[in-house]
């Protein structure tokens, strides 16, 4: 009898707990991708505490930039915390590791990773996966366009000797070739290398008009510094992966004049007033800087914010169809995210379709340069 009573009490409690919406988050707050994960984690704390009149609980776990830990995190979030949706993770390998678990449990997942492979090609698995960071191809097109506008003909590439560098080289080479740019040298280096002299000498011997650095964060300073030291006079391009203040701090005068594509959020207050992203981008920037200090905002936190924006618009729609905590709700939520139309976010305007789970267009990037140790919009 008492056992039955206990069960009844338990059921009542769990029913009450299930009324809230549970959002599981796995970010790389430590390990090599910590500079991505930390602002993302900070941003999650700024997301609204209730959406569509329902309380939202965010359960944040750290995966230490380790795919195994990321997979473990999502298992834990789904089986123990009964989450309705998962945000994460910061990097491509970690997001890929989480994907299978998300599909098996029919839980929508919003990744913040850069590579297109997270949402392409669209198959049964990726049916459940969305992504808020611009695809690399997206950014590479902007660079190639800028190069051809500047009359560049020969270009050299130096990038990380890992998936990030390879991914960039592939995208960049594909687009460059289509636009008749000749790649005269292609070199690699490690994130924690102390010297790239060998690679730089080889590149400079090929006499390129422009050099593309396929690196992210502060390790991308090294090639540019070596180029300046050895007296290279041509154009230098960086990827959007360097758009944080640490890059400027470490780079100092050596990174002046570099060109890079960025999400509009990075230079939100320089955007012309008629830019459709300006208002939504400024909203995030102001909120983040109010909480963590002036100049603390970085492009990566914006991807976490945009995941929140997607949820903010999709959850009210899903709530009309089912109660949180049920598989029906998760299905409805997935459909609602996929149906997002013309939603302004920090990095662009979302227009998702069953075949495009990224959903950004040309408005999700602008070209910037580094001037006086600050990001400046290239008009």
């Amino acid at each position, binding site marked *: 009898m008492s056992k039955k009573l206990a069960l009844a009490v338990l059921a009542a409690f769990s029913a009450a707990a299930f009324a809230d919406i549970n959002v599981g988050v796995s970010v790389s707050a*430590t390990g*090599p991708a*910590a*500079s991505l994960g*930390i602002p993302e984690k900070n941003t999650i704390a700024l997301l609204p505490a209730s959406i569509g009149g329902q309380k939202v609980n965010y359960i944040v776990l750290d995966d230490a930039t380790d795919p195994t830990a990321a997979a473990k995190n999502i298992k834990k979030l789904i089986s123990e915390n009964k989450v309705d949706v998962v945000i994460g993770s910061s990097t491509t390998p970690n997001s890929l590791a989480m994907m299978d678990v998300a599909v098996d449990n029919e839980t929508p997942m919003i990744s913040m990773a850069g590579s297109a492979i997270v949402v392409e090609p669209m198959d049964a698995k990726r049916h459940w996966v969305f992504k808020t960071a611009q695809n690399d191809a997206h950014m590479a097109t902007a660079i190639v366009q800028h190069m051809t506008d500047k009359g560049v003909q020969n270009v050299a590439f130096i990038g990380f*000797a890992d998936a990030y560098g390879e991914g960039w080289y592939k995208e960049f080479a594909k687009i460059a070739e289509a636009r008749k740019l000749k790649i005269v040298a292609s*070199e*690699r*280096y*490690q994130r*924690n*290398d*102390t*010297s*790239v*002299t*060998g*690679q730089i*000498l*080889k590149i400079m*011997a090929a006499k390129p008009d422009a050099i593309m650095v396929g690196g992210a*964060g*502060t*390790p991308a*300073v*090294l090639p540019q510094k070596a180029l300046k*030291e*050895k*007296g290279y006079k041509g154009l230098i391009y960086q990827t959007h992966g360097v758009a*944080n203040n*640490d890059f400027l*701090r*470490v780079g*100092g005068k050596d990174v002046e004049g570099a060109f890079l594509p960025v999400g509009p959020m990075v230079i939100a207050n320089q955007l012309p007033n008629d830019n459709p992203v300006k208002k939504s981008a400024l909203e995030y920037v102001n909120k983040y800087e109010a909480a963590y200090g002036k100049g603390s905002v970085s492009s990566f936190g914006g991807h976490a914010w945009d995941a929140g924006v997607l949820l903010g618009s999709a959850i009210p729609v899903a709530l009309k169809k089912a109660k949180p905590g049920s598989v029906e709700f998760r299905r409805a939520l997935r459909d609602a995210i996929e149906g997002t139309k013309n939603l302004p976010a920090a990095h662009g305007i979302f227009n998702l379709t069953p075949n495009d789970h990224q959903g950004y267009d040309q408005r999700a990037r602008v070209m910037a340069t580094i001037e006086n140790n600050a990001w400046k919009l290239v008009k």
Partner: protein
Amino acid sequence: MDLQILLLLGQDGITNGAIYALLALALVLVFAVTRVIFIPQGEFVAYGALTLASLQAGKVPGTIWLLVGLGATIAVLDGFQLLREKRYAKLPPLLIFNVGLPLLAAAGLFAIPPTELPLWLQVVIAMLLVVPLGPMIYRLAFQPLANASVLVLLIVSVAVHVALIGLGLLFFGAEGSRTPPFTEISFELAGAPLQGQTVLVVVASAALIIGLYFFFERTIYGKALRATAMNRTGARLMGIPPALAGKLCLTLAAAIGAFSGILIAPITTIYYDSGFLIGLKGFVGAIIGGLASYPVAALGAILVGLLESYSSFYASAFKEVIVFTLIIPVLLWRSLTSKHVEEEEE
């Protein structure tokens, strides 16, 4: 490839090799005296560089909290021991060294903004903050296990390495730092530009190596360390306490590591986890020296630096593979030529 490129690559290789050589020497020293394969050696490099960088950024480096924490732990452990043995006279020096000085250093850092100090003084402060970590780590992690097998010591060494990396992330953040160069001079050598800082690295490393030579040959402490390295039991019978020898050689290792970090911080960006790879390359050099011979270890480390530099020119994507593959023929040659000596039984 023309002569200029050859020279530039050689210059780059020797600069890196000089740092690897210093670390190789420290690794050989620590292994010879304590039988610890000291994986955290690289962390001293990162801590040295990043502590200096945070001083220059006007931040109180997190290293100070580690220093205070470790010091307090040691004071509690050793204090109880002394109380139990009723050796009250030893208490004040114990407290002054392990609690008083770190707290004084912390107070000093908060009182005087380090950004206004001259560079050499910042370097001295950074060294003072990092070097005592060496003996403290020895006291807490290795001294209680001094007689354990090499394998156990290695496992502890890996644990210390992981702990220091985690703390490094906490103290210095995920992104790297770079310090301004000690000298802006640059001149030409055989048609190739040469940075003053590069010369400084090579000269300072060479000076340090010579200094170490005199330390081991001419001073009583150096001789005591050599004696312990040759025969631990014999040295103990001659009145050389093994704990002192262990602390002394870890102090040296920490000093060498921190100094290397300060030397290369202006040349490259240092991250909280950069130390491991730099230390690992020093380790390859030390292995070439069989973890026993100082000159061969130093030369091996320079070879690693040169190999790294030239392979980054010819096959940049496979650079690390080439460098670490070097260890295979060396180990083969070692195992074919060396006589196996049984580890001494206690």
